[in-house]
């Protein structure tokens, strides 16, 4: 329940209001929603054509069974370390494919976040903010849709596949609401029209006639937006084939591995390639309070293969330089192994990873102590993590939006970009 705001920004907003009101004799109406994000700035970001894929490990993957092993320690668990294609960097044996992609990714071993339970953690790691009673924060995907998306594109700007989190576009509004595909990548309800084309064309002609008549009488922005949404829904119909991957699967299925998650990763690549700025792909089951090791033995290898395939695929297509791949869950797992061979929730010291989009590859940032109980150096908070993601995508993390009358920066106030990660 953090309600934060910034004195400096209040003042600048007040000055702005005063200034413009004085200048225009009170006749100007400001579009406060865009006050801190000028159209020019958004356009500049858009032109860089940056993209983001979020691999979401729902339930919270164990850092000990992935990137931050404590072999031989009481907290270490049974798996071995393997070497990678980056000298000196060793990761869990459950990730042999990623071991060969380590030069492309940056691992952060020093995450410290604030929300230890699932719903709160899912909200936190999707928005950068703890839940608050009075503000509906937008998810990462909504912010990226707004700044990296192409207005008028046929495909939605924010797509989730088999994923979690229900903050959605929050106060950014329905234009940036996620287009959420099913677990198997299937389209959401009502996405596909069922009318025969000639009927659809006929009713569209009639509706367009009505809208044109009405637009002569009433010129409010609202109706324009309504018409634009109608146009975007019709454009989507022409692009629905982008959601089919059967042909591609024949060719790439082996690389991604025979798993639902693999298919969804391939779909994400196809969507990003078609210009979608943000796709989230979820992989569930990591909440291993019992049998953590069996659990991770089942979960991690298919994820490892699909993730590595995604990076390879993006790289081969020249997309990795402009596509940020984020790998995280909502929490990490405890150093202590409980009496059911499980690991519980832990946010004092855990791991995430980033790749592509101008980030340094082959880097491990931050470290935990010998048992993985605490961050030893270079702590990264959720705010720092989000700020770094936004900076990598060319979006100023201090960009603000108004929720009601309250200005809210996209990364929480006080967050620091981890410059060391950026090439």
């Amino acid at each position, binding site marked *: 329940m953090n309600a934060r705001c910034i004195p400096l920004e209040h003042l600048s907003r007040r000055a702005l209001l005063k200034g413009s009101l004085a200048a225009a004799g009170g006749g100007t109406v400001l579009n406060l929603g865009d006050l801190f994000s000028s159209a020019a700035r958004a356009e500049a970001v858009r032109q860089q054509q940056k993209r983001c894929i979020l691999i979401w490990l729902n339930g919270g993957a164990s850092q000990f069974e992935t990137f931050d092993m404590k072999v031989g320690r009481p907290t270490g668990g049974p798996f071995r370390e393997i070497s990678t294609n980056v000298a000196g960097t060793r990761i869990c044996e459950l990730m042999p494919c990623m071991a060969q992609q380590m030069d492309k990714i940056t691992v952060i071993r020093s995450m410290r976040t604030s929300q230890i339970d699932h719903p709160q953690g899912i909200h936190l790691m999707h928005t950068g903010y703890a839940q608050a009673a009075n503000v509906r924060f937008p998810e990462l995907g909504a912010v990226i849709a707004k700044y990296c998306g192409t207005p008028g594109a046929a495909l939605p700007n924010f797509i989730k596949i088999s994923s979690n989190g229900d903050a959605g576009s929050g106060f950014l509004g*329905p234009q940036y609401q996620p287009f959420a595909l099913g677990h198997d990548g299937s389209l959401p309800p009502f996405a596909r029209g069922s009318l025969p084309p000639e009927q659809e064309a006929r*009713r569209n002609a009639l509706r367009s006639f009505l809208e044109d008549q009405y637009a002569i009488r009433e010129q409010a*922005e609202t109706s324009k937006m309504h018409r634009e949404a109608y146009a975007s829904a019709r454009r989507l119909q022409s692009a629905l084939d982008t959601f089919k991957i059967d042909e591609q699967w024949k060719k790439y299925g082996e690389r991604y591995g025979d798993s639902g998650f693999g298919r969804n990763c391939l779909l994400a690549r196809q969507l990003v390639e078609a210009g979608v700025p943000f796709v989230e792909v979820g992989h569930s089951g990591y909440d291993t309070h019992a049998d953590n090791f069996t659990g991770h033995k089942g979960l991690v290898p298919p994820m490892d293969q699909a993730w590595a395939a995604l990076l390879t695929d993006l790289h081969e297509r020249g997309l990795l330089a402009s596509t940020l791949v984020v790998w995280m869950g909502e929490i990490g797992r405890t150093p202590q192994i409980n009496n059911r061979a499980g690991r519980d929730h832990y946010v004092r010291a855990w791991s995430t990873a980033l790749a592509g989009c101008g980030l340094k590859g082959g880097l491990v940032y931050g470290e935990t102590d010998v048992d993985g109980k605490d961050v030893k150096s270079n702590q990264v908070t959720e705010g720092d993590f989000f700020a770094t993601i936004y900076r990598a995508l060319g979006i100023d993390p201090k960009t603000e939006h108004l929720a009601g009358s309250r200005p809210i920066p996209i990364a929480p106030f006080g967050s620091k970009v981890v410059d060391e990660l950026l090439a």
Partner: protein
Amino acid sequence: MAKWRLALVSACVLACSGPVAGSRSSSASAADELRGAIDAEIRQVWSREKIALPAPADDSTFLRRVSLDLTGIIPTADEAKAFLDDADPHKRAKLIDRLLASPRYAIHQADVWDLVFFGRNPPGEDSNKREGFDRWLQQAFEQNLPYDALARAMLKAEGNSAEQGAPLYLLQYDRHPEDAAVAVSATFLGVQLQCARCHDHPYEPWKQNDFYGLAAFFARLVRVKAGQADKLDKVFVAEMNTGEVKFTGKASEAKAGKEGVPVKPKFLAGAVLEEPDLAAEFKDEKRPKEGEPPRPPKFSRKDKLAEWITTDNRLFARAAVNRVWSQYLGRGLVHPVDNMSESNPPSHPALLDRLASEFVSHHYDLKWLIRELVSSDTYQLTMAGATTEAQPRWFQRARVRPLSAEELLESWRRAAGYDAWAAASGKKIEGGRFHGVTWDYVRNFFGEPNNGVGDFQGGLQEQLYLDNGELNRLMVQDKGSFLESLTKADEPLDARIERLFLATLSRRPSTEERSRFAEQLTVKDPQKLPEAVREAVWTLLTCSEFRFNH
């Protein structure tokens, strides 16, 4: 059509501050009424801003606007026809009276205020079952409970959430006194306090002490569940005799584990609450027992706050009239409505003062206030004009607002003839008030169509629902249905088209529309007529003119 004062006055008259004598549709003398004062103040500003005199709304626009605003549903085709053909010069005033007396008035007001008090995604584990609260709210509007009494009931929270209803409001903020302070000050006082949670407000008078002083009134509240009524949990707001809010200083200097000092309850911009001292040997019970209605405390902070907020409180009356004004005129005189502050002055200060003082002298009578607002010429302006803002700052054109999810669904059902068909079929309708389609979809896709600062934003999901969703279910084409009647050649095609427009847009079609729709409904193969009719009805249910109240 009613004779219009606004359209008749000349520009020089605009300069005068007093109301212009004229023939308004209502019988009473305008000068004595609030509506006259509203129009005079609004006109004065137009004159200052050099805004040309806008035209009044035509009868059909007014009919649809006021029907939606007062009853949350469009009129039926018959009602529309009767109103348009009525030659009575007082028909608008009579319509307003009829709508305000309709049972739908309370139903709609309950929808509107439920959203004010809870929003679409309220916090709190009890908030998703609001039947008890909504029933209470609806009864309050049926009885025209004064607004101060309404607010007092919610803030005093006597009784339980199922039978009395009102306590549900504070239960949203169970164990979060700081959130209660933010919400109560914004909702009832129009004051944004959340900045003062972490630091003294940089340019408003609010100090962190004001914030924690207000939160202290809620610090002793405890949620107690005791039994069930009507399948709803009876949840009480108990108040302990002890318990304080602790203040730890500026958030930026906060240290984990710092204990903080207890803060005394303090009225906003006012005095510290005087509390009787508890006896030295007094020990509070640990926590009220679950399953038993709680005992009242020896001294209630919450009741003191409820009295202070709702009794002779200038902020309270101003926040209320500003909010109600925005509900009918689109934007607050202070906008956004919950940010009344020195740095965000009213667009029409004298008008806000007048509204507030008359609201108090009329004993916080909401129905009276609403009648005055919708009877004003300002409310009854055209929606046409060059301004592209949905909510014009100087009220020089009617505002354009999206229909709420509730208004949309019930209006679709009425327009498509679904309600009439269902009533005639004698079938038992399952699913309560929001039957016919899947209410969860409608609420999710149409519930919050705005961008965070209250401006409409159309989304893809909403449009996909309109295009490919469940409207087909409402467009029944059985024998005796509205859609079927549109296929019957025993009525001239033009007359059928007119009925179609009256049923959906509450107006008669223009010449162009008549011929375009005749083209649509003239099909070579009679087998194809039902589908042509369905397309025609669909366009009218989904077009901008239907989507908005204008």
